[in-house]
Every structure is written in structure tokens, then in C-alpha cells.
């Protein structure tokens, strides 16, 4: 197997809870000795329910939070040795809610070029060229350049967020529930798009989700988090066919699916109303 792109080694994160006059001091162990490797080109899904620690894990992997114990290695080096900008060159986020993750006072162009502006290496014309190129890849018209988020649908906004994550050509994209705020049809578009972009940009995804059918559709490996512990990590086929852990089994049983498509039902070729 190739070298890991990112290694999470024994990572724990403990939050100390309120110590006001009326509350006792307490600790919340959001992550408890979590370890896994992320290999180049794969889609690693992190599955868990609320309180499982998946958001804390995503913040740590994005360099927004430090583990209380253990370490995270990026390309073999501890993340602390990276400067923030250098780290952002390699790892970029796509967040859940495109209504909140895009600054409402910026145009599409300003939003997408922001990582380049922060890096501060290219001129204005070069940045614009890259933004246009990316819009083209995402099949968005260039007249969107001057639109504001409030003028766009959820799917369009999430495309802008994806474009912003990709403009500085990162190696890892951490998607935190990127489709759970979207309608199913838009979700399908965004999922297909993310997977197409993986090939185009040679990306490695960490895909944080609670939706098991989405995970099965796109992930190569699945990590299951329960109350801060990594309870199972397996290939997607193995995990769905023969889960080892009880909790995973419970998750799989709770997931709601619809009956399989019958042969007679083919997706329509186009609108024929």
C-alpha cells in the first residue's frame, strides 16, 4: 500500500465544560484515541450520529482545532510544522450548509478566488482566469461571476463552495455533510459532481456523513464513530455486507431504503410532459 496522505494517530480531544457558579466542572471526551490513515485517491467516509465526535474530528483534520492527545500527520509531517497557509494549500473544506458557508456580501468571483487572494501569489487577471476555468469545469455560466449567494439556489451555492475548495488545487477535500442540506435531486447532482472532480483533480476525500446510502454510493472505506471512539473501519463492501460491530449493524438496520428499481423503470431520457 502507498504511503498515507494523512495519518490520525491516537487522537483524543477533551473539552472542559462550564465552571460557572451553578455548574460543576466536567469533561467531555469528544474523541477517544482515534487512529486511521488516509491514502491518496480514496474516499474515506466517517459515519456517526450526533455526539459521535465527527465534527470535532473534521475540525482537527482541517487544522482548526488541536487534539488533546495524539497527533495528526500530513504527508508524513506533524500538522504543527505547517504554517496555516501551507496547510490550506493541501487541505480544503466543503461545509454542510451553503447558506452559512458563503459570505452573503461577496460575489461568486470574490468567494471563489479567496484562497488565491489569501495565498497572495497570482495577479488579478490570473485569478479571474482560474475562476472562469473552474466555473467551466463545474458547468456554471460565467455570468454567475457577479451574482450574490442570495440570488442562487442551494445546489448552485454548494457548487460555489466546491469551486472555492478546489481553486488552489488541494490534495485532500474534507466534506462535512456536503449534501444533507440539499434536496435529493440536487444531492445526486452534487455527489456525481464530487466524484467526477475526484478524477479531474486527483483528489482524496474525507466524507463526513450520517446517510449510509450516500456513503455506500461513493465511499471506498468507512469509519464508524460512536461516542468518540472509532468502532469499525472497513472497506465499504465488507462493512455493508458483514458489519463486525453491533453499533454498525444497528445503524445499517435503521437506515431507510426504498425498494430496488424494477427493470421496467428506466430513468427518462428527457422531459416529456
Amino acid at each position, binding site marked *: 500500500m502507498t504511503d498515507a496522505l494523512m495519518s490520525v494517530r491516537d487522537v483524543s480531544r477533551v473539552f472542559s465544560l462550564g465552571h460557572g457558579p451553578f455548574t460543576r466542572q466536567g469533561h467531555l471526551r469528544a474523541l477517544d484515541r482515534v487512529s486511521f490513515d488516509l491514502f491518496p485517491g480514496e474516499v474515506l467516509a466517517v459515519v456517526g450520529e450526533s455526539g459521535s465526535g465527527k465534527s470535532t474530528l473534521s475540525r482537527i483534520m482541517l487544522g482548526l482545532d488541536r487534539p488533546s492527545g495524539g497527533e495528526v500527520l500530513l504527508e508524513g509531517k506533524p500538522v504543527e510544522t505547517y504554517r496555516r497557509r501551507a496547510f*490550506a494549500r493541501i*487541505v480544503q473544506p466543503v461545509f454542510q450548509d451553503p*447558506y452559512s458557508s458563503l459570505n452573503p456580501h461577496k460575489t461568486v468571483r470574490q468567494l471563489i478566488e*479567496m484562497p488565491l487572494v489569501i495565498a497572495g501569489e497570482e495577479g488579478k487577471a490570473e485569478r479571474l482566469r482560474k475562476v472562469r476555468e473552474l466555473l467551466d469545469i463545474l*458547468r456554471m455560466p460565467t455570468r454567475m461571476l457577479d451574482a450574490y449567494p442570495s440570488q442562487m439556489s442551494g445546489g448552485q451555492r454548494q*457548487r460555489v463552495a466546491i469551486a472555492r475548495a478546489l481553486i488552489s488545487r488541494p490534495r485532500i477535500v474534507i466534506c462535512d455533510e456536503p449534501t444533507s442540506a440539499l434536496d435529493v435531486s440536487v444531492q445526486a447532482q452534487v455527489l456525481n459532481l464530487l466524484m467526477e472532480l475526484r478524477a479531474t483533480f486527483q483528489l482524496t476525500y474525507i466524507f463526513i456523513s450520517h446517510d449510509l446510502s450516500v456513503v455506500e454510493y461513493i465511499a471506498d472505506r468507512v469509519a464508524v464513530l460512536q461516542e468518540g471512539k472509532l468502532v469499525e473501519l472497513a472497506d465499504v463492501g465488507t462493512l455493508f455486507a458483514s458489519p463486525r460491530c453491533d453499533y454498525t449493524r444497528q445503524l445499517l438496520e435503521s437506515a431507510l431504503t426504498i425498494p430496488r428499481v424494477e427493470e421496467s423503470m428506466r430513468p427518462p431520457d428527457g422531459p416529456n410532459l
Partner: protein
Amino acid sequence: MSQILEIEGPTPRQLLARRAAGHPGFLIGTTILSILVLVALAAPLLAPHDPYAQDLTQRLLPPVWAETGTWNHLFGTDALGRDYLSRILHGTRVSLLIGLCAAVGSGIIGAMLGMLAGYYGGRVDNVVTFFISVRLALPVVLVSLAVVSIFGGRLWIVVAILSLLLWDRYAVVVRAATQQLRSREFVTAALAMGASTPRILLGELLPNLAGPLLVVGSLEVGHAILLESALSFLGLGVQPPTPSWGLMVAESKGMIFYDARLIALPGAAIALTVMAINLMGDGLRDILSPGGRA
């Protein structure tokens, strides 16, 4: 693919313009204020006389609507024979200049402190909250008295005093707004992209604070104008012979029973200006707040 390609609805700015056009209070306030600004800019051209020129032979001439009034001195003259209309027109300059400068100055102080408190929270927040409490405990008149008696009553000193005394409302509003914005994902996104703290504060947060800042700012202009008048009336503000409305009221206070116009005219000017500004400020609040996302 039409769903992907479509851009729906107006830009945020178009939306604001549309809401502004449907708000009578805002329109009236803005119209009066625009006229006042034009008057201030064109005061030397509009004023029939030099506002400083004394003519002791022409003292206390009545205004044109009095029986003995003349068109030469529309609003009459004051106790030193200076043309009252010219002085009021030039007073617009002083009032608006002080109001605007003080509002901007205190806005910078308040916005900075508020953003820092709201963004960092914790100890920084405690320190700023302490400063706000201290500022609220300071008696404005007493502080002005002390400062003016030490440094004198020059215009820029009055502006500085007002800037240092009016930032509290900005700080409170900005702090609360920043606390809300801080948890929005676009701030986290900027952090994850490696943005520096100044970039996040000025590039990401400030544009989103423009609305509340404008609303507070417009109301503070009115506040500053009133305070300047009050300070000048007490002799702590702008010094004679500068034509300030507050000073004009003060200079004529002995005449109140003989020639009320000397007080009523600058008083009306103050009231009109502050009313226009408050109408505009209230309108701005209505226009900017419903579209919290716009």
C-alpha cells in the same frame, strides 16, 4: 439544465434600493439631509453676507416678516450686527462637520473594540465590557469641561471629545452582531483557507456589520450634533466667533423675552437636522434589518 444556470432575483443592493424606495420616513429624512449637506457645501455662495462681519450700527435688526424688516437681512441681525441668515447657513457646516466626524471617529473606536470583543470572547470580551461600563459611567459634561479647560475649545478638540464619548453604542451593537457572525460557517471556512485574523475581521466580518454600523452611525450623528450644541451653549464647545447653532442660542439667551427669533431660528435648525437624521436612521434600520441575509 436550466435550474443550474438560472440566477434568481435581484442583487442585495437592488433589493435595498427597492425597500428604500418604499419607505417614506427614509425618503423624507434623506431628502432634508441632502438639502442640508448641499447648503453646508454651498454656504459661502448662498450666504448674503459675511457671517463674521460686525456692524454695530445694524444691531438687532428684525427679520423680513416683522413690520420693520428688510430683504437685505432676511432673518435680521444679531446683537453684534451680524447677518443672522448667513450665520445659520454657515452653522450648518459646523454642525454637520462635527456630527459626521464625531460619528465616524467614535464608529472606528466602537467597531474595533466591539469586533475584538465579539470575535475573541473570553478575556478580551471582559476587558472591552469593562471599558464600556467605564465609558457609561463618565459624565459627558464634566469630562468635556475638564478637557476644554485644559486644551481650549478648538473645533477638532470638540470632535475628539465627542469621538471618545460616543463609541459605546457602536461597541455594544457590533459586539453582539460579531458574536452571531462568528459561529457562521463562512468564518470557519475562511479560517480553514488560512486567512489571517485581520483578514477575517476586516474582509469577512466588517462587510456584514455595515448594516448595523450605518444605523447606529446615523443616529450618532444626530446625537453628536445635539451634544455639540449643548456643549457650545455651555461655552465648552466651539468658541466664538465661529457660527455654531448651539453657540448662537447661548449668545442670545439673554434676549429670549425681547427677540425670541434669535433662539428659535438656530433651535429650529438643530431640531430639523436631528429629525432628518433620525428619520433616515430609523429608515435604514427598517431597510437593512428584514433581509438579515441580504
